[in-house]
């Protein structure tokens, strides 16, 4: 009997390894370590093959293994049974284009990957010219998923049109934003998809060498990606003359070293060159002078991961999802104080409420939702009164907020927003690369000013607004430039929290 127990870090963090070894001890059981469905609230989520599809149980502990095995073998109902996985509303309501294989396949099985549509995009790309591939990507409307939402097709075209003896493809897998884990899930759960997407980028632009820059906080992702690359090379999906064609592409994993700023693309390039991760001035654009001064495609994991679908099904098929200028789907990540946290891939246009209250089921604590930080540590705090906001780059920007990498961190009504504002400044001070004063010095000043306000000094309010303005307009990159958003949104929407200390003292 085959039992699937996810090898995803979040599943492991909740005991999946112990569950897997408990199953492995049973007679007649073959344990397969699959990827995660992204239902973190049900992890460790165990699945059995049945004639009608997969039957699921969760959340399972090692103690439940015996009884689950027994009742499953005798067709009895177990208290942890959720029935057939395909029938789960939480999954059925999603639009999984990128995460189509999540939970279904063994991440390191090439045959699984190919049996579930893998390499269809690359096969199509191998028959096309660079310009034709770039056109598909442009037609899809795909915008960078790393935060800045820049059209991917335009970036690729620039690299394609820039002549050079060597070009590079770099995947930004630094995923430093709190509340995000979709990149990690791709790398741990479907690594061949990322390899396929990057290879297509290489073929499209004439780049023959690629790097995946993975943060060191993701040891499992680093290990799985390295293993997957070796497997792909062995099967000629990477390396010279891919599948007997005249196209070649090689891929190397590089590990970061705990610096948030290395997620900024030019700091990442410096880091990849073995230097301190300092932000570079632009221009020149990395697409023209990037890694080692050569034209370089830099994209987020999710951007590359969307490409195999786009090539396999056509740019139009992807574009049919979404609204306005936000096309396709985004794998949203429900995090923080949330009852049903995990990965929800939906077309743009879904509201925060549908995500947080619908899929998420409200807070984990059972208390009222008070605020959500969307788009990582540089994203604004959105008050519960804006729950009906649609997930759309432009709609969020109009509110001074940001969709970013699609992470949503939920806070209940026990949160102290002055403390959150202080943390935003603190984080900026710790992670600043130090190149420009408004960020390096401003963030330290910012901590002091927030403290003064929290201590009841109202005269510090205009100083904070002024300081935030200086940071916004005087910083070279978005670390210094966007830290004011969480700070000022906290102050604007939750002014009471900033006078709490004063009241307590009175």
């Amino acid at each position, binding site marked *: 009997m085959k039992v699937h127990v996810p090898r995803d*870090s*979040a599943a*492991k*963090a*909740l005991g999946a390894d112990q569950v897997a070894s408990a199953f492995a001890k049973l007679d007649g059981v073959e344990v397969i370590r699959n990827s995660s469905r992204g239902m*973190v*609230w049900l*992890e460790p989520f165990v699945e059995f093959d049945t004639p009608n599809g997969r039957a699921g149980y969760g959340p399972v502990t090692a103690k439940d293994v015996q009884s689950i095995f027994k009742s499953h073998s005798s067709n009895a109902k177990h208290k942890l049974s959720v029935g057939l996985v395909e029938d789960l509303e939480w999954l059925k309501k999603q639009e999984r284009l990128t995460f189509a294989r999540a939970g279904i396949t063994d991440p390191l099985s090439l045959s699984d990957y190919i049996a579930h549509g893998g390499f269809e995009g690359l096969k199509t790309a191998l028959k096309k010219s660079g310009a034709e591939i770039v056109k598909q990507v442009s037609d899809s409307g795909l915008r960078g998923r790393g935060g800045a939402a820049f059209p991917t097709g335009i970036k690729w075209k620039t690299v394609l049109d820039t002549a050079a003896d060597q070009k590079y493809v770099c995947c930004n897998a630094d*995923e*430093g*934003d*709190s*509340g*995000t*884990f979709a*990149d*990690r899930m791709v790398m741990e759960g479907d690594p061949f998809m990322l390899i396929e997407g990057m290879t297509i980028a290489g073929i499209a632009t004439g780049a023959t060498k690629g790097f995946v820059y993975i943060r*060191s*906080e*993701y*040891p*499992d992702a680093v290990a799985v990606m390295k293993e997957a690359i070796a497997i792909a090379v062995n099967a000629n999906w990477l390396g010279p003359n891919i599948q007997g064609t005249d196209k070649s592409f090689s891929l190397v994993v*590089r*590990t*970061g*070293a*705990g*610096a*948030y700023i290395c997620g900024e693309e030019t700091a990442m390039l410096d*880091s*990849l*060159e*073995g*230097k*301190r*991760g300092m932000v570079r001035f632009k221009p020149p654009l990395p697409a023209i002078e990037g890694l*080692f001064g050569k034209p370089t495609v830099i994209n987020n994991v999710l951007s590359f991961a969307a490409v195999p679908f786009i090539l396999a099904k056509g740019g139009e098929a992807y574009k049919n999802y979404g609204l306005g200028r936000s096309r396709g789907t985004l794998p949203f*990540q*429900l*995090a*923080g*104080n*949330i009852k049903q*946290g*995990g*990965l929800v891939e939906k077309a743009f246009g879904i509201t925060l409420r549908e995500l947080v209250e619908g899929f998420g089921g409200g807070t*984990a604590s059972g208390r009222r939702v008070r605020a959500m*930080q969307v788009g990582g*540590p540089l994203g604004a705090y959105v008050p519960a009164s804006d729950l009906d906001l649609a997930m759309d780059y432009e709609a969020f920007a109009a509110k001074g907020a940001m969709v970013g990498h699609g*992470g949503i*961190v*939920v*806070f*209940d009504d026990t*949160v102290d927003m002055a403390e*959150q504002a202080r*943390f935003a400044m603190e*984080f900026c001070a710790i*992670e600043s690369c130090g190149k420009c004063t408004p960020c390096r010095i401003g963030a330290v000043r910012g901590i002091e000013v927030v403290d003064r306000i929290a201590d009841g000094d109202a005269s510090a309010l205009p100083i904070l607004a002024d300081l935030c303005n200086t940071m916004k307009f005087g910083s070279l990159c978005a670390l210094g430039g966007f830290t004011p958003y969480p700070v000022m949104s906290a102050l604007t929407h939750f002014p009471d929290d900033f006078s709490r200390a004063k009241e307590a003292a009175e």
Partner: protein
Amino acid sequence: MSEANQTAAAAAIAARHGNRPDELLEILHELQEELGCVAEAALPVIAKALNLSRAEVHGVVTFYHDFRREPAGRHVIKICAAESCQSMKGRELLASAEKILKVKAGGTTVDGKVTLEKVYCLGLCACSPAMLVDNRPVGRVDAKTFKSAVAELA
């Protein structure tokens, strides 16, 4: 490990990476893995092998939070201090951890058993608060589970 051994290890690791300056981070990671830290004695060796100045290598080592100048304890626990974990009592968890281990984040217990570190996001935000115990992920941690995780360590 003696200084001579440290410099020998550094030279060997650099050579394994073809003495390429762009592989400096990989070299430092491996060095830390092998020596427990990026030992001072190793820096001039690496600088020479990679044809960099000592100041350049020093600049890289100090820029990245991961690289340690002193060896860590036998085990390293990294507790997440970022927003998602904050929303699930991560601040309280870190305070409890410091109390249980009698050490501040960044420090090592007197018996040399555990080094406690503060990190920003482990990608385990749907099961916050989270930590890594010697690279093993643990989710929904509270003071009690923290205590038993420490007790399990040799």
